[in-house]
C-alpha cells in the first residue's frame, strides 16, 4: 500500500453510483479514481496502481468475472464485487476467481465501508500467520492449539480447530464453501458442503454461538461463511 491516503478504483457504468461513491468514500478520506468499463478498469489499474478495487459485475463491455481474472494477472490488491441479490452463483464464481468480498446491491454505505476496511487491513498485514487471534472474548492460539471463550478452554477436534482458525484468519471476509472445503478437507471434497454444515453446527454449539443471532460465525446463504469482525 502506498503511504498515506488509500486509493480506491470504482468500476461501474452507472454515473449516479460512481458519483455517490465518490462523495461518500471521499468523505471517509479515500482517494477515488473511476472507470466506466472493463477495459478502462484494466488500463487505469495498470497506470494508477489503486490499493483496492470496487467492481460492478454488470459491465457493458466485458463480463465482470473475466475482468476479475484479468485484474488478477496485474495485481493482488483486494477486489470487492458489487452484485444483485439472487445472483448467488455469480458471487461464488467471482469469489472463486479471486475477488475478496462482495456487497449486495442495493447496499448501505456502512456495509461497504466495513468490507473495504477489512480488505485493506488484511492486505496491509504481513503475509505470515499470527500466533494468536482474539475477538469478543474468543481467542485462538495456533502454536498451542488452544481455544478459549471468556477464559474457559473449549475442546475442539482437529478439523474444528482448523476451520475456526481459517475463519478467524480471514475475519470479516466471506469465504466460499468451496474455498473452505479445499483448505480443510482437500480438493477432493470441494463439493461436500454437508461436511461443512455439520462442522459449523458443532463449532457454533461449542462456542455457544446462536445461529439465529450469530456472534462469531455468520452464514452467507448460497455463498459461504464469514467470521464476524
Amino acid at each position, binding site marked *: 500500500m502506498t503511504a498515506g491516503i488509500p486509493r480506491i478504483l470504482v468500476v461501474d457504468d452507472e454515473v449516479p453510483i460512481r458519483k455517490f461513491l465518490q462523495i461518500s468514500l471521499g468523505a471517509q478520506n479515500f482517494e477515488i479514481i473511476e472507470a466506466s468499463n472493463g477495459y478502462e478498469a484494466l488500463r487505469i489499474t495498470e497506470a494508477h496502481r489503486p490499493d483496492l478495487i470496487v467492481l460492478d459485475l454488470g459491465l457493458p463491455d466485458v463480463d465482470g468475472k473475466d475482468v476479475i481474472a484479468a485484474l488478477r494477472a496485474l495485481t493482488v490488491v483486494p477486489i470487492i464485487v458489487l452484485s444483485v441479490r439472487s445472483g448467488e452463483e455469480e458471487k461464488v464464481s467471482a469469489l472463486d476467481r479471486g475477488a475478496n468480498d462482495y456487497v449486495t446491491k442495493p447496499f448501505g454505505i456502512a456495509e461497504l465501508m466495513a468490507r473495504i476496511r477489512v480488505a485493506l487491513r488484511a492486505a496491509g498485514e504481513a503475509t505470515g500467520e499470527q500466533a494468536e487471534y482474539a475477538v469478543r472474548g474468543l481467542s485462538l492460539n495456533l502454536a498451542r492449539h488452544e481455544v478459549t471463550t471468556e477464559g474457559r478452554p473449549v475442546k475442539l477436534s482437529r478439523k474444528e480447530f482448523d476451520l475456526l482458525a481459517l475463519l478467524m484468519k480471514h475475519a470479516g471476509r466471506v469465504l466460499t464453501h468451496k474455498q473452505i472445503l479445499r483448505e480443510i478437507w482437500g480438493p477432493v471434497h470441494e463439493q461436500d458442503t454437508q461436511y461443512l454444515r455439520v462442522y459449523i*453446527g458443532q463449532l457454533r454449539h461449542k462456542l455457544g454461538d446462536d445461529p439465529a443471532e450469530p456472534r462469531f460465525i455468520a452464514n452467507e*446463504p448460497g455463498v459461504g461463511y464469514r467470521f464476524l469482525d
Partner: protein
Amino acid sequence: MNREYDRPSPDALLHEVGNSARGRLKIFLGASPGVGKTYEMLSEARERQAQGLDVVIGIVETHGRDETRRLTEGLPALPRRRMTYQGRAFDELDIDAVLERRSALVLVDELAHTNIPGSRHEKRYQDVEEILAAGIDVYTTLNVQHVESLNDVINQITRVKVQETLPDSVIEKADEIELIDLPPDDLIQRLHEGKVYVPEQAKRATQHFFGRGNLTALRELAMRVAADRVDADVLGYRQARAIVEPWATRERLMVLIGDSRDAERLVRLGKRLAERHESTWIVAHVMRGESETHLEKGRLQSALELAERLGGETVSLTGFDLVEEILAFSRERNVTQIVVGRSRRRLRWLTFRTSLASALLRHASNIEITIAGCGDVQPQEESASVAIEIARSEIPFLLPLGTTGLAAGLAWLLSQVLTTANLSLVFLVGVLFVAVRSGLRASIVTAVTSFLVFNFLFTEPRYTFDVTQREDLLTLLFFLLVATVTGNLAARVRKQMDVLRANQRRNSLLFEFSRRIAGAVGRDDLAWSVCEYVGQSLGAETIVLLADSDKLAVAAGDAGTHGLIEVERAAADWAFERRDAAGRGTGTLPNCRWYFLPLGVSGKKACGVLGVTYADRKRMMSGDQRRLLVAMRDQAAVAFERAMLVEERERAELRSETEKLRSALLSSVSHDLRTPLVSIIGATTTLLDADVKLGGEQRRELTEQVLSEAERLNRFVQNLLDMTRLGYGALKPRLEWVDLRDVVADARQRLRDALRRHPVQVQIEPGSEMLFTDAVLLGQVIANLLDNAAKYSPPDAVIQLRVQHRGRDHVIEIEDDGAGIPRAEREYVFDMFYRVRAGDQQVAGTGLGLPICRGLVESLGGTIHAVNPRDGKGACLRLQFPWRRPEPVNLEDES
C-alpha cells in the same frame, strides 16, 4: 307481402360473394372443332390486355394456324411443363407457373383435356379449378361434345364415343359462357379450305362427324347449353336480389338405380331432367340384397361415381319393403319426381315380383313417377359383358346337387312307407334348405334337379323321364311350382337378412366408433383412436394428419419408414386446402398410395386429413367401405372440431385470466411504486429547500424516511422479479442440506428494520434443523412471511416461528397475533394481487408476497397453507416439506 321472400336467399348471396373471392371463369363454347373458339378467346384477351389487364397464356394450341398464332403475339406465354410418358414427350399446362405468376387473367385452351399420367390432376378442368381458387380469372374453350350429361345424346347422334368428358358442375360454376356459333355450311367450307385442324389419323372418322346433320344437332345442343346458362343466370340474379315474382317451390328429383346395365344412363337422364326443371337431384341406390357379381358391383359403383361427378347427391336405400322405404325417404326430402328404369331382369316371371315402377305408381300419390325406357345397348358390349358375368359368377353347383342326392337317398328309404306324392316333400325340404343357405340361383338349380330326379326315380315308369300316370304328372307339376315359389321366398328372406346384417354391422361399427372417440381426451388421443378404429373397420392402413399453424403433420398412424413421400404430401395438402378427397382413386394425384379425405365439418376450415391405404396395392375400396369411411370421417371431424373448440375456450379463459392479472398488476404497480416515490421526492425536496429551516432531528427523520421508503421500493421490485422468474420457469432450485437456523437468521438480518418492533420467537425442534432445500429461495419465503407477519400484527406482539418434524412432514409455521385471515379466504390469499382487490386502504404491500411464497415453496417440493392458529388468534402459515433424514456424515476426525 310475406317478409320471408323479401330477403335475398343466403345461398344465392353466398354464391355471389364466393365468386368474388374466386377467379372468374369464362368458357368459349363451340359446337365442334373449327368454329373459332381459340381465335375468339385470344381476340377478347387482347382487348382486355389493351385495357391494361395483366393477361398471360397458360396454354394455347394454335394447331399451326397462322391467323391464330398471330393473335398470340404480344401476349406473354408461360413456359409449359414438359412431361414424358411411355417414351414420348408432352407439353402440359404448368399449373405451378400459373399460380406463381399470379396474373389477373390466364388463358387455358381445351378445358376437357386429359393430362398425362403423373400430372398433379387427372383432368385439365381440375387445374383450372385450382387456378380459380387462387383468385385468378381464366378464359377457356370447350366443345359441347365433352359435356358429361350430353354424352349419351351425342353418342347417339354422332356414333362417336367421347372419352374426354367434363362434369356439368364445371359449366354450372362458370361465370360466363360465350357461344361461338358458326353455321354448319360455313364450317364445312372452312374444313374443305383446310382451316380446321384435324389430326392425320382421325381424318377418316371425321368424315362422318362433320356431316351436316351432325353439325346441326351439335349446334343445337351447344345453343341449349348456353341458353340454359342464361336462364340460370337470370334466376340467380333474381334470388340474389330477392325479386319474388315467379317463386316456384324447389323441385327435387330422385333417380332410382340398381346394379343393372342402364344405371349410368339413368343417372345421365336424371341429370338432364333435373337441369331442365332447375331442381336438385338425388341418386338413390335401391337394393334388395348385395350385388352378386363383380360386374354388377362395378356397374353400380361407377354409376354412383358418375352421379357425384355430375353434381347429384347419392344415397342407399334398403329394407324389407322397398316401396315403403323409397316413399318415406321421398316425403322426408320433399322429392317431387322419381325416375325409375323399366325392369329388364331375366326370369322375372319366376320371381312373382311386381316391378318397382308399377308398385311406385300404385302407391305414390303426389309424386310424379317417370319410367325411363331401356336404352339401346350396343350388342357387342352386351355379349362381352354376359361372357364376363358367366365367367365370374360362382353358381354353387355343389350344394344343390349334393342336397338333391341326399334327398333322393332319403326318399328311396322312405319310398316303402310313403306314397309317391308325399315323397316330393322330402325334395321340397332340400330346396328350402338350399334357398336359405345359398340364395335364389342355387334354389332354382335344386328345384330343377330335384324335379328331374324325382321324375326319374319315383314316378311310373321308373328310371325314365316319362310320366304315364296323370296323378304323377300333377304331383310333378305342383312340386315344381311349390319348389320355385318357396325357394324364391326363402331366398328373399335370406337376402334381406344379409342386408339387415350388413346394415347392422355398419351401424354397430359407427356406434362403436363414436363411442370410442367420445372417450378420447385431447387432440392426439383422438387422432390415435380415429386412426386405430378406421384401420380396423376397413382392414386398411390409416394415418391422421393434423394441421399445426396451417402445416400438416402426422398425428397418428404409420406413414412408413420414410414418412410421406412428396406426392403423398402434396395430395394430403391438396385434400386439406381444397377440402376435397385426393390421392388414390380420385382425380387428383391418383398415383399416390393414399386416399386422403379432409377432416372438416362442411363450410369450415378442415383441421387435418385422414389417409387410408391398403397394403395390397391393387385392392380398391368398395362403395360400401367408402361410404362407411365417409361416415366415420364425418364423426371424426365433429369430434376434432369439438376438441379444438375446447382448446380454444381454454385459451380464451387463459387470455381473460391474463388480462385480469395484467390490470391488477398495473394498479399494483401504480400504487406500490408511486407511494414510496411520493415520500422520497417529498422528503428530499424538503431537505434541499433552503427556505425551510430544519432542526437536526427533523433532518434525520426525513432522511430515515427516504431510506426506509427506498428499501420498500427495493422489496417490491425484488418481488416483481421473483414473480417473473417463477412465471418463466427460470427458477432452478439448488438443493442441498441447509441449516434452517442459518436461513432464519439471514431472513431476520435482512428484515431487521421491519422487525424492529416485532420480536420473533424462534423454536427449532432439535433434530429438525437440517432441510434438503435451496437456502436462498427458502430464505426469501421466510423473509416474506416474517415481513407479512410484522405488517399485519400490532407493535410488540410476538411473532412465532416453529420448526418441527411431524410424521412424514418437516413443518415450518409462522404465526402472528394480528387480525388473522378469515377461514373462507385462506386459499385466496395465495392468488396474485388478492390484497389489492380488498381495497386501497390496506397496509402497504404488493399482494405478491404470498403467491410468490407458494410458487417458491412448490418449486422446492413443498406446500404452503394458511391454517388455524394455535392460540386461536392471528394468522398462521404452515410450510410442509417431505421429511428426509439428514445423511449421516462420516466425520473421520479425532478430538
